[in-house]
């Protein structure tokens, strides 16, 4: 690994790991969703997210000479750079919907910015992924709009899920170690800027269903952000998830599957 590439590698790893881990969580609904049609929908989303991680890992392969399978199925859990948010257990369907919605909005602002990146391969990949993400957003936003304003139970669950998920989701915008270089080199505009754009979008959606987020007058979060993931400081939820992910792959040494 060359020193000069370290900032890009750091960012790509975070992007790829976020997608893989949330896709893994989404796939836990395959066979268990509230209704058949939604089962099919979530399985599509899971495939898309995992597919997006594959796009980012493929870019990393050029920089690290390490295959996507090796990155996902051979790396130690502490070497993952996903935010903690994506690794938490899937919870009830309200938590899943809120998490997916927050993630999809973050992806939206992130990809829009990356589609302008000074780094060509990132620009191209972002433009490709953006198209599938747009559909995810349509799907998760439609569910937030409806479940957030339907029955007493659905409102209660959606409020609770948002209260839990919002501080966690700030971890999506945790500062990267090489953030200054990435901003200076115009690889991306920086997490602070992305977070501001993201908050503007989610406030509108949640506001429409009377869910208020803990923000101050200038839209800065008033809660403690659940940081750590970008520095490899993960919770045991990721440890378990990665152990599952690796179980068969690492069960026979030197085997192909």
């Amino acid at each position, binding site marked *: 690994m060359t020193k000069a590439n370290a900032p890009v590698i750091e960012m790509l790893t975070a992007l790829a790991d976020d997608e893989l881990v949330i896709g893994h969580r989404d796939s836990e609904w395959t066979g268990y969703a*509230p209704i058949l049609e939604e089962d099919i929908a979530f*399985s599509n989303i899971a495939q898309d997210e995992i597919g997006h991680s594959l796009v980012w890992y493929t870019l990393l392969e050029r920089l690290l000479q390490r295959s996507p399978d090796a990155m*996902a199925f051979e790396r130690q859990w502490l070497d993952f750079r996903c935010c903690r948010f994506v690794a938490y257990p899937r919870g009830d369907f309200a938590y899943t919907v809120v998490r997916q919605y927050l993630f999809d909005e973050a992806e939206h602002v992130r990809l829009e910015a990356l589609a302008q990146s000074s780094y060509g391969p990132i620009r191209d990949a972002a433009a490709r992924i953006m198209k599938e993400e747009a559909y995810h957003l349509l799907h998760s936003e439609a569910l937030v709009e409806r479940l957030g304003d339907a029955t007493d139970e659905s409102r209660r669950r959606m409020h609770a899920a948002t209260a839990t998920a919002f501080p966690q989701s700030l971890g999506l915008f945790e500062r990267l170690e090489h953030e200054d270089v990435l901003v200076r080199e115009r690889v991306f505009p920086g997490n602070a800027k992305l977070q501001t754009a993201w908050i503007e979008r989610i406030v509108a959606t949640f506001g429409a269903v009377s869910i208020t987020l803990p923000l101050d007058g200038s839209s800065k979060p008033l809660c403690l952000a659940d940081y750590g993931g970008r520095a490899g400081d993960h919770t045991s939820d990721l440890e378990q998830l990665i152990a599952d992910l690796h179980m068969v792959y690492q069960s026979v040494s030197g085997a192909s599957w």
Partner: protein
Amino acid sequence: MAELTGEERLVEFERRIDRGEKVEPGDWMPEDYRRNLIRMISQHAHSEIVGQLPEGKWIPYAPGFRRKLTLIAKVQDEAGHGQLLYRAAETLGKTREEMIDELLSGKAKYANVFNYPTPTWADVGVIGWLVDTAAVINQTMLAQSSYGPYARAMKRICYEESFHIKQGYDSIVTLAKGTAAQRSMAQDAVNRWWYPTLMMSGPPDAMSVHSQQALRWRIKTKSNEQVRQEFVDHIVPQIRALGISVPDQECRLDGTTGHYRYSPPDWEELKRVISGDGPCNKERLEVRRKAHEEGRWVREALQAHQTRKAV
């Protein structure tokens, strides 16, 4: 126009079937035809839904990107097939609510195979390869069914099932070419799935009341024994070509008939498993019930949201 008598209608109906014409929703049909079809199609739908579980269990553990994505897509297709089949059954006048209720209450039956456990990764491949091959042989036949909506659903399903078989076969070929541990994993899975798969086509026709009637009205066009023989003839050479043995000493090609002979499965076991007493029946239904109950608030909320908006 003069009303036809019941007898005349039946004659008319059977003539239509003999001419190879399809029966469509809204057509007059004998009550037994309707009942038999609802039973078959809903059982088929339940089998897809319950069938998501034994393989779905392996989604978190699937080794490598390709296998993981493929497995999600495969289990997703099963939900998709269940969806199509429930719809086909609904055209006969039974709601999906009623059918799902019958599944969860344990009243309805579904394919025996999904009540067996999947203790190893090789089970996923073997289900795709053996079980889905048996399913496709049956479903290709059902695509000729006299009931239009069932036949249409089957055409689409057969296409997707061929992906299921290929991915399963591909996974087992990889194991067969792999380490000794992988090869024995594949052999072990074939050993365990052989008889349950043979049972899938149903008991010998002489033992099956439904089968005779279904044949007469071309709900299906081949007997259980024919379908089973087709499966054996197709799969035995494939299994052996991979260096895996068929767990049946009697299994060999009969030079005079051109068909493989095989030992019949234990029909008492099939009866037990179908009527709820297989190794995993309880677990499967409990998982389905739990998912159904946990999803209830979502179904109700989206319904309520629409009802309020419509007011």
